[in-house]
């Protein structure tokens, strides 16, 4: 027998105590069993998970706490460790002293004596609470989703109800203006007021239109495809806005190089281009708007740059969140850009914005040609 000094012996004892306390006080159950599943060691956490005391379990078979359906698998796991399988983790349903089922994650590891595997250690973590929390979380998530859908439906219904009467207000105010104009130079004030009726009903209508379009698009995950003539749509939209741009005294620079077709959704692409250009006009008082379109390495690049008010970099990430207005003073509800992002994503593309406060902004849209 090897001889140890008293000091060395004390050191061994100290180490044993140390490891013992780690095992004893572990939050996870630590169980040692032989190759037949006979329990050799059982710590406090094992007692608190399974209800059996150390005294009750030492010498008992592990199958006592395993549901029948998992017993065979447990024996296979033991055999695997015995045959040298490295440490592995499994999930089992176990049974407690008072016959309750618990979900546990079990890590199997071998215990060596010299170079030989002699026993098996398992650390076992009770995941029942985790599972319950997860279930609660899932339920909450489902409720949230319901609220989200309800909000979306409510917004759409409200908008639908508002749209019909406002449409009529708009049409009647246009007719009213016409009647007033028949009266020649008179009724100047009435004409001015009438003009405000037309302008304002127009702006409510376009907001309502946006909400309805957004609520339709918001929960869409796939689109109807057709051939998209990007250049043609781009030019068509620019035509619509050209007079508005020049009326505002802005310079329009067009740099449209690409001529290609791709498979996407024309209606949505038109909406995207319209929203981006509309946005640029809205926030630009003087200077220019540059619209460019080109195709490179299988990707479509569409960008609109303005010399408008720009936004500070800390607000950039809020830009595409629906109903999130960057400045309270901005007109509109803040769905336009959220819609743009959604449309780009439905085409597997990306949208970015570069901006300098007071200098202007640039929106860049990148869409793969074969999306």
């Amino acid at each position: 027998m090897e001889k140890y000094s008293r000091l060395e012996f004390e050191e061994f004892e100290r180490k044993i105590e140390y490891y013992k306390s780690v095992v004893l006080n572990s939050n996870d159950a630590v169980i040692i069993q032989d190759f037949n599943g006979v329990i050799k060691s059982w710590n406090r956490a094992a007692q608190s998970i399974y209800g059996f005391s150390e005294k009750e379990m030492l010498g008992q078979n592990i199958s006592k706490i395993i549901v029948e359906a998992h017993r065979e698998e447990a024996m296979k796991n033991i055999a695997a460790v015995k045959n040298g399988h490295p440490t592995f983790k499994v999930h089992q349903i176990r049974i407690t002293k008072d016959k309750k089922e618990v979900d546990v994650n079990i890590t199997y590891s071998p215990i060596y004596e010299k170079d030989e595997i002699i026993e098996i250690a398992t650390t076992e973590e009770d995941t029942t609470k985790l599972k319950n929390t997860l279930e609660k979380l899932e339920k909450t998530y489902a409720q949230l989703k319901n609220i989200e859908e309800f909000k979306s439906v409510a917004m759409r219904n409200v908008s639908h109800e508002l749209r019909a009467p406002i449409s009529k207000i708009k049409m009647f105010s246009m007719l009213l203006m016409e009647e007033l104009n028949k009266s020649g130079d008179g009724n100047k004030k009435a004409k001015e007021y009438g003009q405000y009726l037309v302008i304002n009903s127009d702006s409510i209508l376009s907001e309502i239109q946006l909400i309805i379009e957004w609520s339709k698009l918001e929960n869409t995950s796939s689109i109807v495809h057709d051939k998209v003539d990007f250049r043609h749509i781009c030019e068509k939209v620019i035509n619509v806005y050209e007079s508005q741009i020049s009326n505002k005294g802005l310079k329009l620079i067009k740099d449209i190089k690409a001529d290609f077709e791709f498979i996407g959704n024309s209606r949505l692409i038109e909406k995207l281009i319209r929203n981006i250009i509309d946005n640029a006009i809205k926030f630009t008082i003087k200077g220019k708007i540059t619209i460019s379109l080109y195709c490179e390495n299988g990707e479509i690049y569409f960008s609109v740059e303005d010399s408008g008010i720009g936004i500070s970099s800390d607000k950039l990430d809020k830009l595409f969140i629906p109903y999130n207005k960057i400045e309270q003073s901005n007109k509109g509800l803040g769905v336009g850009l959220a819609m743009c992002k959604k449309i780009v994503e439905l085409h597997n593309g990306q949208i970015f914005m570069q901006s300098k406060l007071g200098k202007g902004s640039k929106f860049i849209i990148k869409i793969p040609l074969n999306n």
Partner: protein
Amino acid sequence: MAKKSILIVDDDKEINLIYKAILEEKYSLDFALNLNDAMIELKRHKPDLMILDIIVPPDGGDKFYEKIKSMPAFNDLNVLIISVLGEMEDFAKKYAPNSLSLGKPFTKKDLLRTINEIIG
């Protein structure tokens, strides 16, 4: 020359007032506030054009459109489909080329131009 005739099928009396204001001068107008009346009116006098709102009681303008188009007497009838802008676009597109459908709210100019394209 006699004015060309238009049958307007819409249950909204205020909208009908708008049609009247815009079209009365140039066209001879008849109105039907529901689809049963529309059918009676069609059989009494086949108009040069029917303006059909897509939402009309009891079945909706879309069903009515399909029904009359399957009737030999009316399959050549000019129909201008009116939908709310951005709604029922698919139906309007399915059955009507651009000139045969119009979204609400429309302007006087749009309505007159569209009808002029169809019946002159």
